[in-house]
C-alpha cells in the first residue's frame, strides 16, 4: 500500500510532528516569531484554544499532546487565512495543521455525528452524501451536450474532467456540471469524464485529519488516472484541485492540471465571441479560499464575468486575500450543527450579509460547496428574494448563444 504524503520523501521518511525539523517546510515552523497574526486573522480564532501560534508554542515546549486532546482544532475550516498572512511564510494550513489534526482526530472519542456519517460515506461510497456510486454519472443524462465517459469511448482525450461529488450528486452542483459541459463544447475542448469509476479526491478529509481516508482514496484515484490516456486534468472542484496540485505529486501525479475557472479564462478568446446573451446582472464575486488565497486566482474569475455582456461587477468589503471563508472547508461542511451548538456564527451567513450589502443581484462563486452554503445562508438572512447564488460557469453558460 503506498502512502500519499504532504511532502516528498527526502530520505527521512514521511514527515511527522516528531521529525518536522528534518524537512525544510518543517524547519520553517520553528521560525515562528509568535506575532499572533494567525490567531487574529482566523475566523474562529477567538473560539479556538489552539490557534497556529499556540500550537507552535506547545510543539516547542514538548506539550503537543495537550493539543491532541483538545477538540478546538475542529474549528479550523482550512481557510488558508493564517497561512496567507503569516509574515514568516509558514505553510500552516497546508503542512502544519493537517499533521496536528491527524493526531487530534486519532485521539477524538466523539466524532460529531454529521461528520462521521460523511466520512463513512466517503470511504464506502466514494462520496460524502452516501449516494450510490453507480449513480455518479447519472447527471450526464440531463446534460445539454454529450458527456463522454472514458471507459466507454476507449480513445485518448485532451482533457480528463474530474467532476467530483457535489457536482455529480447535488442538484445545484449538477447545474454547475451541465454548464461546464456546455462550455467545454463551446470552447471546442476534447474532454471525457471518469463516470461511475470516479471517487471523491478526499481533500477535506485530509485537511480535517482523516489522513488514512485520504490515502485510501488517493491510492484508488491515482490507479484510475493511470488507466486512461489523456493530456491534462481539469476540475471544477476547488478542493480536488488542491489535492491534485499539492498532494498527488507525492504519488507520482505529474499531469497538467487546471481548475475550470482559470481554464476557461485561458479560453476566453474562443468563448468571448459566443457570449452573446446580455445578462443585466450586478454581480459580486466571492473569492473562495482554495482558488483565491491558496492559489492566487483572483483575476481570472473576474475576467470571465466581465466578458459577459451586460454584467456589472461590484466588490464586497472583504475580497481577494481578505475574503471571508464560507466555512465549508476542512470538514466544516459537516460541522455546521456542531458549530451551532457551540454558539458560533455560521461563516456563510457572515459572508452573505456582506454580499447583500453590495446590492448585487448575483453572488458568483467558483467552488461547488459554496452554492448550497450561500443559498442556505441567504434563506436564513432573508435575502433569497434579493440575491441568487450562481457559479461563474453557470453564468457563462447562460450567456452563451444557443
Amino acid at each position: 500500500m503506498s502512502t500519499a504524503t504532504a511532502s516528498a520523501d527526502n530520505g527521512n521518511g514521511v514527515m511527522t510532528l516528531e521529525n518536522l525539523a528534518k524537512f525544510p517546510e518543517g524547519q520553517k515552523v520553528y521560525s515562528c516569531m509568535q506575532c499572533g497574526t494567525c490567531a487574529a486573522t482566523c475566523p474562529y480564532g477567538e473560539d479556538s484554544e489552539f490557534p497556529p501560534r499556540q500550537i507552535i508554542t506547545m510543539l516547542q515546549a514538548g506539550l503537543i499532546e495537550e493539543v491532541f486532546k483538545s477538540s478546538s482544532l475542529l474549528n479550523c475550516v482550512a481557510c488558508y487565512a493564517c497561512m496567507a498572512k503569516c509574515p514568516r511564510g509558514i505553510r500552516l494550513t497546508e503542512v502544519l495543521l493537517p499533521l496536528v489534526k491527524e493526531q487530534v482526530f486519532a485521539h477524538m472519542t466523539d466524532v460529531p455525528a454529521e461528520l462521521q456519517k460523511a466520512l463513512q460515506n466517503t470511504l464506502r461510497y466514494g462520496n460524502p452524501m452516501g449516494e450510490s456510486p453507480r449513480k455518479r454519472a447519472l447527471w450526464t443524462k440531463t446534460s445539454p451536450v454529450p458527456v463522454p465517459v472514458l471507459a466507454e469511448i476507449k480513445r485518448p482525450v485532451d482533457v480528463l474532467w474530474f467532476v467530483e461529488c457535489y457536482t455529480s450528486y447535488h442538484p445545484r452542483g449538477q447545474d454547475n456540471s451541465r454548464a461546464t459541459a456546455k462550455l467545454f463544447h463551446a470552447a471546442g475542448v476534447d474532454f471525457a469524464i471518469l463516470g461511475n469509476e470516479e471517487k471523491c479526491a478526499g481533500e477535506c478529509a485530509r485537511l480535517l485529519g482523516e489522513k488514512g481516508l485520504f490515502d485510501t482514496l488517493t491510492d484508488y484515484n491515482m490507479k484510475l488516472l493511470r488507466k486512461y490516456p489523456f493530456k491534462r486534468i481539469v476540475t471544477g472542484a476547488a478542493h480536488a484541485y488542491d489535492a491534485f496540485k499539492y498532494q498527488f505529486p507525492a504519488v507520482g501525479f505529474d499531469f497538467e492540471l487546471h481548475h475550470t475557472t482559470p481554464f476557461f479564462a485561458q479560453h476566453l478568446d474562443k468563448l468571448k465571441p459566443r457570449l452573446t446573451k446580455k445578462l443585466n446582472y450586478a454581480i459580486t464575486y466571492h473569492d473562495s479560499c482554495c482558488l483565491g488565497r491558496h492559489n492566487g486566482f483572483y483575476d481570472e474569475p473576474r475576467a470571465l464575468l466581465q466578458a459577459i455582456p451586460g454584467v456589472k461587477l461590484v466588490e464586497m468589503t472583504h475580497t481577494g486575500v481578505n475574503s471571508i471563508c464560507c466555512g465549508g472547508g476542512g470538514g466544516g461542511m459537516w460541522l455546521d450543527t456542531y458549530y451551532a451548538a457551540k454558539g458560533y456564527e455560521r461563516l456563510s451567513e457572515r459572508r452573505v450579509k456582506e454580499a447583500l450589502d453590495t446590492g448585487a443581484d448575483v453572488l458568483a462563486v467558483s467552488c461547488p460547496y459554496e452554492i448550497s452554503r450561500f443559498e442556505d445562508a441567504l434563506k436564513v438572512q432573508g435575502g433569497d428574494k434579493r440575491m441568487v447564488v450562481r457559479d461563474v460557469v453557470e453564468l457563462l453558460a447562460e450567456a452563451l448563444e444557443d
Partner: protein
Amino acid sequence: MAGNIWIIAEAWRGQVSEITFELLALGREVAGQAGAPLEAVLLGSNARELAQKLGAADSVLYADNAALADPVPENFATALAQLIKEKQPAAVLVPLTNLSVDVGVVLAAQLGVPFLNYCKDLKAEGGNLTATCVLYGGKMEATVTASAKPAIIGILPGARPVEQGRSDKAATITDVAVTLAAPKVHFKRYLESEAGDVDITQKDFLVAVGRGIQTKDNLDLAEDLAATLGGAVCGSRPVIDQGWLGLSRQVGKSGMLVKPKLYVMLGISGAPEHVEGMKGSQCIIAVNTDAAAPIFNVAHYGVVGDALEVAPALTEKIKARKG
C-alpha cells in the same frame, strides 16, 4: 385448513392496542379464505374486561395468570406454547410491535418453528398460507408460503384499518388456564419518557415546519397538529437557525435522521440536505404553496396550498375523528 386462525391480542398498560384490531381485520379475511374460525388470544392478569373488546373474533381465549401482569415475553410465550399444543391452531398472527415481537420470536424458538417476519398481507389459498413480506427496508416485497405447523407470523402495523377490526358484538370468551414457572428474566419497572426531552427520532408522528410557516407564532398550528396526532414538531434548518425550535429538532444532513410512520411537511421546499434526513419516512405528506417545489418528488402525498390553512383544518378533522 385444519385449525383455527389465531391473533394474539396486545394489551398495553390497561388498554387493547390498536394493532390488535388491525390483526382482527386481517385475521377475519384469512379465516374466511381458510374456512376456519377466527380466534383471538388474550393473556393477562385481571384483564378479562379487555377481552370484551375482541368481539370481531368468533371466539376469544383468555388466560389469566399473575405472571402475565408484567411484560415478560418469556411468560407470554410459554403460556401461548401451552395453548398451542392444546388447541392446534393453523396460524398465529403476532403484532410486530416492540412489545409483542419478543413474544413471537421466543414462542417460535420454543416451538422450533420459523417466525415469519415483516408480513404486510396474508392469504389462505388451497390449504396454504401465502404472505406478502416487506424486505430490505421496503425495497422489495416477497410472496412467501409458510408451511410450518403452526405458522407464527409477525404482522406489520397498518396491515388493515383499525376500524375494520372493531366490533360491537359481544365476545364469546373462554377462560383457559396456563401454568407458569418463575421466568429467567425479571421485569423491574417502567421508565417513562421525561417531559421536555423530545427525541424526534423515536416519534411515530412528526410535523415538520419550514420557512413556509413564516412566523414563530404560526408554530402553534404545527404544535396543535402534532399534539393531536400524538407526535412532535421538528423543522428544516432555517427554522432552527432562526431559533424557533431547538437544535435537537432539526431534521436533515446536519440534523437528525428520522423514519417516522408519518411525516407531515408544512412549507418545506425539499432541499437535498433536508431530504437526506427524512426520506425513509413511511408516509410523507407535503403541504406547499408552490406546485413545483421539489418536495413533491419525494412525498407520497402532496397538497398545493397554504400550510397555515391546511394545518388547522387537518387538526380539527383529526380531533373530530378521534372523538
